[in-house]
């Protein structure tokens, strides 16, 4: 194993004047903790700043602990209708995730288990869409949503997101790694394709389903570009990221930092909680997606 100063320090019992391996080990840990701090501190400072008064933020923008604790920032956000934004974000993310998992599961199952003419071509076409960068889809998406009258509507926020190439790819890869025998047994019992998929295939694919749920929820909860083009004038359709970004634009150079950071925390915290609870699946999910190379 390649080691960078972190090998276990052997205790020889002998008293040494200068224990170089131990010093090196301590230094490495100090560096790793410092780095961890660099990743966590911005969030920490943002949490406490969201609980400060505006004058205090201007006077001491770097201080971690507020002199006066206040929910002023959160109350401001309340008046900007942040509750509605949060509802929209959750509603859209949940609906999109549920449909995405089922549709991607069905497609992945068909591509790996059912032999039908054209399946290879279909798979290549779906894989090909992964090559099209999201930003390139911005204007095409706007054009079609406008034609279908789905601008400023929940349908425009939800329906286009219900299928992803990534999801199909992930599910297909996973089904291919499963032994086919269990399904064959179900087939002999007279189950049709639909029953086989729902009662045997999908439950067996549980790890991939969980990974897809997490990725899909995370992606849609944090999504900004899509709502930005779908929502034009209807403020009731704002999601958390969209509402926050537009609020920042409205405030220009006079940002009410406690409100802005309060909004950021409301956007961030649910995702962080999900991450802390389901950490294992985040890491596993990345390895399921076949990116090991």
């Amino acid at each position, binding site marked *: 194993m390649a080691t960078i100063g972190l090998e276990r320090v052997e205790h020889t019992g002998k008293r040494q004047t200068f224990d170089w391996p131990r010093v090196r080990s301590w230094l490495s840990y100090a560096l790793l903790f410092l780095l961890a701090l660099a990743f966590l501190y911005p969030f920490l400072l943002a949490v406490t700043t969201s609980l400060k008064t505006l004058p205090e933020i201007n006077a001491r923008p770097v201080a971690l602990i507020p002199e006066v604790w206040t929910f002023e920032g959160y109350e401001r956000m309340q008046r900007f209708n942040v509750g509605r934004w949060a509802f929209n974000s959750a509603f859209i993310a949940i609906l999109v995730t549920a449909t995405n998992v089922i549709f991607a599961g069905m497609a992945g199952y068909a591509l790996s288990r059912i032999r039908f003419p054209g399946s290879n071509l279909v798979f290549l076409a779906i894989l090909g869409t992964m090559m099209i960068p999201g930003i390139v889809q911005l204007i095409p998406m706007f054009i079609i949503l406008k034609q279908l009258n789905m601008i400023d509507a929940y349908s425009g926020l939800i329906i*286009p997101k219900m299928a992803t190439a990534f999801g199909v790819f992930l599910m297909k890869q996973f089904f291919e790694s499963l032994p086919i025998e269990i399904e064959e047994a179900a087939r002999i019992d007279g189950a049709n394709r639909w029953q086989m998929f729902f009662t045997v295939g999908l439950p067996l694919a549980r790890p991939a389903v969980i990974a897809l749920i997490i990725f899909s929820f995370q992606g849609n909860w944090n999504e900004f570009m899509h709502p930005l083009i779908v929502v034009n004038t209807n403020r009731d359709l704002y999601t958390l990221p969209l509402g926050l970004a537009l609020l920042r634009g409205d405030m220009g150079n006079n940002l009410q930092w406690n409100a802005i950071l309060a909004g950021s925390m409301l956007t961030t915290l649910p995702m962080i909680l999900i991450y802390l609870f389901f950490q294992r699946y985040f890491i596993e999910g990345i390895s399921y997606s076949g990116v090991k190379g």
Partner: protein
Amino acid sequence: MATGIKQQDRQDTIAGWLFMAPVLIIFGIFLFIPILFALYFSFTDWNGISPPMEANLVGLSNYEALLVQGGIRQQDFFKALKNTSYFALGVVPLQTALALLLAIVVNQRFLRFKSFFRTAYYFPSVTSSIAISLIFLFLYQRSGLVNRILETITFGVWEPIAWMNDARGLIHILLGWFGLTAQSAEWLGNRVLGLTIWDWISGPSMALAGIMLMNTWTTIGTLMVIFLAALQDVPRPVYEAAEMDGANAWTTFWRITLPLLRSTTFFVVTLGLIGTYQVFDQVYVMSAGGPAKTTLTMAFMVYRNGFRNSEMGLGAAIAVLLFIIIFTLTLIQRRITTGNNQ
């Protein structure tokens, strides 16, 4: 028997297409058809507001305005290309190297607090780009945390700057230390593709550099986990053999780890290129393309021209060009990586 198989085949064909139907319908309506539309609209003068079918076909004039005709559009396009390229050139190598380093460190067998470190480093990857951009906007103020830290570690030499309002290019600043300015040589004022040579070599502005650092900070975690997954596939005996042969950490890394991670590294660099050439959310929130258009990226220009300036046709043309650029870069990168392999 034969008819049985045939019937089975027909049933499978129907089932297969039925199972594919939801995905295919959504992709067809919201992806395949619209992309053809967009390609068509890149040859029109559509403004995004009037009925699309009333738009006039204008041939290649959108592309000409962006690429060859002297003027503000050409200047903006190449400014955006320059900014985005500096962005990618800075961020991709940095985040790839750091992610790999962290993955190797966190993968150590005897490391304590392993899961804490992994959790901490992956932390920013799960959160909203908008929320993170707002937090960093706060940290990048003149009186903010970033300036304060730089002041402390340089013992007061660092002069606090308002990062997001600072249009000075990094390379310009460096050249300035050696007394070089735009006036140092006549040819620096020559225009190539809409910009002066001096402009081309500006490097990223301080504002763009700020966004680059933040972007690196948020992406490292994801890339680290990808490298970790690959590292765990490397059989331990390989390392043990190297150790027995007396290889040190340095040789082991260059001779064993890196070659074994070649395809993962290719994947991570490709992911990085595709991501950096599309940087949008951060720019939208933190700088909106300013100051002095030094954070105008290709992706932001698509949005700005299409939606804000009501030049949907021109915006579509920029998007098409951006697609070609990303596609070409991926191909070149693939050629380089496989070329080295032989």
